[in-house]
């Protein structure tokens, strides 16, 4: 006499993901050298990257995690709350592997490129250029560019056998693929070349018309931006150009690194409409760019140990418990009259509970507390139980919503392997929390453990 209709369980697990992403095989494979975690903002990308890094390290690999903008407490938990732009070994990692972590400092990374490629005097000239200063601190795309640059540097050092990289919290997940190119082509672009080499241009007869346009344009831009800024841009680009190859060349090199075998992309998302829409978009884009996608990490997936009890039934049951009180003030028996079947079973106390504690409605008058008090206690428990049932109904509704959005994604992209990570009630701020996430990632089961029935 199961109270649940037979289809209740089926609706909860109607569609399973086409493929399950095996996180451990990916992390254990010595051929995996770079794991890139990408996805829209606010889906737990950084935490996922850190958890993957820790798990790989504890499974024996020598790992470095490059985070972009970690939450303060997450950074502290890994001991990287100081911004020194170099990997630091994380303490408290179990096993033979090593975990190093760093937080990207984009300005510093940019400075280092300049220092590495130009001699002292020239480097100083570039570093002091006002345009360079605003470019390195705030240009849209600089962070993405520098994240890729740093990835290239870490890979070139070849000190780690696995690099896990987080991507910047961009407005759109695609920015991190596009921005380096955009910055590169902007700095190498036609316009900037024209601006920096007007003399060369003037020498060619065929370009005369254009040249008139150019001088008018430089004039307008000069008026608009201030002649000084334009001059700063010109000297900056000239200095950068002569000291080392074009920006686009560098951007292209990192881009090729991402396409190389040994790189695995993980698209991180939460089971929400917008996040998954963005994830689907990203999956298509990676395919178009020949970037190797390992799978989708679906964070914050909810489960329930009582998934057999549907939201509708839970709400109906909660009403059963509460409603009689509204019409009938005489106490806890009203609810019971509705279900004579269960009367007998609830009358006999559960074995693990001493008889004295059984202050349930049918036992009225047998315990030590006075009937009034006891009735109040019972009412309290029924109210609470009704609350528990409403909470469960809310959870089940959430579950089916998540299921629907995920199923929509898997229907569109059946080829993408999925790893689901059960939701945690709070934020992660220590290694134990990261380890827990890692376990959940690898276990790939959002369900909470079923109620223990010993």
């Amino acid at each position, binding site marked *: 006499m199961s*109270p*649940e209709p037979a289809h209740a369980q089926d609706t909860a697990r109607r569609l399973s993901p086409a493929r399950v992403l095996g996180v451990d095989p990916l992390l254990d494979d010595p051929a995996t050298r770079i794991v890139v975690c990408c996805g829209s*903002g*606010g889906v737990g990308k950084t935490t996922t990257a850190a958890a993957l890094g820790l798990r790989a390290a504890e499974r024996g690999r020598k790992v470095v995690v490059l985070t972009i903008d970690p*939450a303060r407490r997450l950074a502290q938990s890994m001991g990287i709350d100081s911004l020194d732009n170099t990997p630091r070994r994380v303490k408290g990692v179990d096993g033979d592997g090593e975990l190093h972590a760093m937080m990207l400092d984009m300005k510093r990374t940019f400075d280092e490129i300049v220092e590495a490629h130009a001699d002292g005097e020239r480097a100083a000239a570039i570093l002091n250029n006002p345009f360079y200063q605003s*470019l390195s601190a705030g*240009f849209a795309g600089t962070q993405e560019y520098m994240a890729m640059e740093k990835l290239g540097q870490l890979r070139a050092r070849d000190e780690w056998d696995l690099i896990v990289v987080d991507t910047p919290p961009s*407005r759109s997940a695609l920015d991190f693929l596009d921005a380096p190119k955009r910055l590169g082509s*902007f700095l190498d672009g036609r316009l*900037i070349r024209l601006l920096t080499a007007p003399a060369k241009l003037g020498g060619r007869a065929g370009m005369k018309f254009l040249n008139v*346009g150019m001088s008018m*344009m430089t004039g*307008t*831009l000069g*008026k*608009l*931006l*201030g002649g000084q*800024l334009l001059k700063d*841009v010109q000297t900056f680009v000239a200095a950068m150009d002569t000291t080392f190859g074009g920006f686009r060349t560098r951007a292209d090199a990192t881009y090729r690194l991402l396409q190389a075998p040994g790189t695995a992309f993980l698209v991180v998302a939460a089971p929400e409409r917008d996040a998954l829409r963005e994830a689907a978009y990203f999956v298509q884009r990676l395919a178009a760019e020949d970037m190797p996608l390992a799978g989708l990490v679906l964070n914050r997936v909810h489960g329930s140990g*009582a998934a057999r*009890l549907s939201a509708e*039934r839970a709400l109906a*049951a909660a009403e059963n418990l509460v409603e009689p009180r509204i019409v009938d003030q005489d106490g*806890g028996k009203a*609810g019971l009259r*509705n*279900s004579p079947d*269960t009367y007998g*079973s*609830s009358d006999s106390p*559960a074995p*693990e*509970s001493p008889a004295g*504690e059984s202050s*349930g*409605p049918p036992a009225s008058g047998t315990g030590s507390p006075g009937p009034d008090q006891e009735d109040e206690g*019972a009412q*309290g*428990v*029924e109210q*609470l*139980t*009704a*609350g*528990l*049932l*409403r*909470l*469960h109904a*809310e*959870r089940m*509704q959430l579950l089916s919503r998540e299921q629907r959005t995920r199923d929509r994604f898997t229907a569109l992209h059946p080829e993408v392997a999925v790893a689901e990570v059960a939701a945690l*009630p*709070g*934020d992660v701020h220590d290694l134990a929390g990261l380890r827990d996430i890692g376990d959940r990632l690898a276990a790939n089961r959002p369900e*909470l453990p079923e*109620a*223990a*029935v010993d």
Partner: protein
Amino acid sequence: MSRLQVVSGKGGTGKTTVAAALALALATEGKRTLLVEVEGRQGIAQLFETEALPYEERKIAVAPGGGEVYALAIDPELALLDYLQMFYKLGGAGRALKKLGAIDFATTIAPGLRDVLLTGKACEAVRRKDKAGRFAYDYVVMDAPPTGRITRFLNVNDEVAGLAKIGPIHNQAQAVMRVLKSPETAVHLVTLLEEMPVQETADGIAELRAAKLPVGRIIVNMVRPEVLDAEDLELVRGVPRSSVARSLSAAGLGGARRGGNAEKLVAPLLQQAEEYAERYALEHEQRAVLAEQGLPLHELPLHAEGMDLAGLYELATELREQGLS
């Protein structure tokens, strides 16, 4: 009530939704509001379920009670062309500049220029009057950049100071700053009851205050309903499992005996309550952090099924009831 209402917030907190709801809420009977988008994402069009907005003010909704909401997606390129046209009479040459990528170039190497064009356009709408001398819009609501960038975005004076010391850009920046730093403007911050957005909100408020920009209200978005209160949660800790089992059984969910269907539900239900309690405590902490900011605090309920037009109108009504209009 300030006539320029700027809405910012960490990404993912729903600031576009709140800005749209606020524009609807402020459009009470006979009033007209303008909802301005500055990041080129077409979020407003998506929310109002219409096609992409052009660079042109157009009526997008009639608010409950009869007010009108207009919308404008400001395109910095077109705004710059407008601007060049106004001051330099460029004519066709302007289009040539655009073709060459000069406009993109200018707004790219000088992000402050882009910002002053965007805020300038919004301020112009705030000050615009019709022939009768009446304001064209009673309120202008701006869906602004996120908290992390809002102070730099609004503090255009500092941004363009190095770039233009005299001339039209300079004058424009001055005029913009006069509006933005006056009581005519209020900057609202949208947040969730989670650690990172709350932290960012607190940081954002400190930055805005340091820049002497007027901070308005904190709007906590997507607040989940309280299913269990503190008293219930207290009870959860001590309640005998057998009496919960009996209650469940009384509600018609099977036997309360060990192994019975009702009894099997007890552990998972209590587990869910524990998770709820943990989140409840976290949210409580975050509310306390927000309360310390000394700003009016508003809460908007979560629309679990996702935001749609109907939900937007509900939020607008909620904002009115909370006295935001």
